[in-house]
């Protein structure tokens, strides 16, 4: 795999994440290591509760691992202060939240433009990038609507526009096609694929095998552990015991 010989844009090394302590302790991730190179799209699959969202949060600096390390573009996230981490999230990382996370008091366009504006882009520039991204997702006509006036599928597309507006080099998408019909879902995959073909690194959490198949690699998580990887041409059942 030539893509992986380049330096990784995202590198998780022996990452674990434990929620709570004692009797209520949940080990959401256990010793997870994987890398995503520029140009690569990786799909993450696994049953509900297997740690997919936790992994994405940790990868995007929204949550800290309790063990191991996360590096984005060669920088260990734990070496960054709050402000620097926030800056990285606004400039380098595009994040599609499972529950969209749009700000209700802002229009669709304002929501999409916000990260750019916070980063200090001139408002006109950020708005222009926002409109371009909304158009790319086929929701240009919804620019002036507020999230509450949008359907689930429309909110989802606005949330995706926010994650891909500007030049994000790492796109993390948590079930971005959940609220979409099949043909819109495929359109989103095409878009993510194009961004990665243009040099971004992408991680896509999905339940749909049909969507995961757009990825270069499919990583399977179960109970916080990477159990397997489907990669064109590679075989391996790491972490599994094997049939006798």
């Amino acid at each position, binding site marked *: 795999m030539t893509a992986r010989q380049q330096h990784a844009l995202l590198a998780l090394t022996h990452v674990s994440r434990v929620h709570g302590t004692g009797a209520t302790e949940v080990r959401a991730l256990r010793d997870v290591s994987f890398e995503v190179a520029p140009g690569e799209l990786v799909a993450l699959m696994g*049953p509900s509760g297997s740690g997919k969202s936790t992994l994405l949060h940790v990868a995007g600096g929204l949550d800290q691992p309790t063990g191991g390390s996360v590096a984005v573009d060669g920088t260990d996230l734990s070496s960054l202060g709050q402000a620097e981490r926030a800056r990285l999230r606004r400039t380098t990382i595009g994040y599609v939240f499972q529950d969209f996370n749009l700000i209700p008091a802002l229009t669709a366009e304002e929501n999409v433009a916000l990260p750019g504006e916070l980063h200090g882009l001139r408002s006109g520039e950020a708005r222009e990038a926002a409109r371009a991204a909304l158009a790319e997702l086929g929701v240009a006509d919804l620019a002036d609507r507020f999230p509450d006036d949008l359907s689930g599928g429309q909110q989802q597309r606005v949330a995706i526009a926010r994650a891909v507006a500007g030049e994000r080099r790492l796109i993390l998408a948590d079930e971005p096609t959940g609220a979409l019909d099949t043909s819109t879902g495929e359109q989103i995959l*095409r878009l993510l*694929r194009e961004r990665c073909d243009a040099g971004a690194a992408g991680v896509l959490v999905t339940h*749909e*095998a*049909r969507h*995961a*198949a*757009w*990825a270069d690699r*499919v990583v*399977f998580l179960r109970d916080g552990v990477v*159990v*397997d*990887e*489907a*990669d*064109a041409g590679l*075989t391996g*059942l790491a972490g*599994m*015991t*094997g*049939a*006798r």
Partner: protein
Amino acid sequence: MSVKQALLALLEQGPKYGYQLRTEFEERTGSTWPLNIGQVYTTLSRLERDGLVVAGGDDGEGHVVYRTTEAGRAEVDAWFGSPVPRDQPPPRDELAIKLAIAISSPDVDVEYVIQQQRTATMRALQEHTRLKRSGRAARPEAPEDLAWSLVLDALVFEAEAEIRWLDHCEARLARLATTGGGTHS
């Protein structure tokens, strides 16, 4: 796979010789089910014997050109006019049989059997998807390109259904394990 009816239907669109038939078949199905030329000629001679086609001489370059007869056209109409038979019982499904036996075998790690299959099927699905998004199936212009793109969709849906069934099996087994019922005592 009924090569006979498919070739007959292609011939009904216009007289053709063997290589042309093979090319047209593969254009529409993206060489998913490659035909060897021997198979094409064997089929043509059977069709001729049954009075469904006639060998209508030479195309000027030494190729024997075939065309459908009245009976051949009726056969094509009947093919399009009836469903593909779904056998009862259905053809043996090796994966279903393997899992059915794995689940009742005390020494088999069923999770492994499932995961191994899921990875293999996912890899096939990735390959179908790669073909779908590149080349002539990605932006079908001619009907043959659309035909191939739809054949790929059929393979995609089939692989997806298998993965969904594997997920379902895994979830059912996990539920059984947590509710105290074991697969074996």
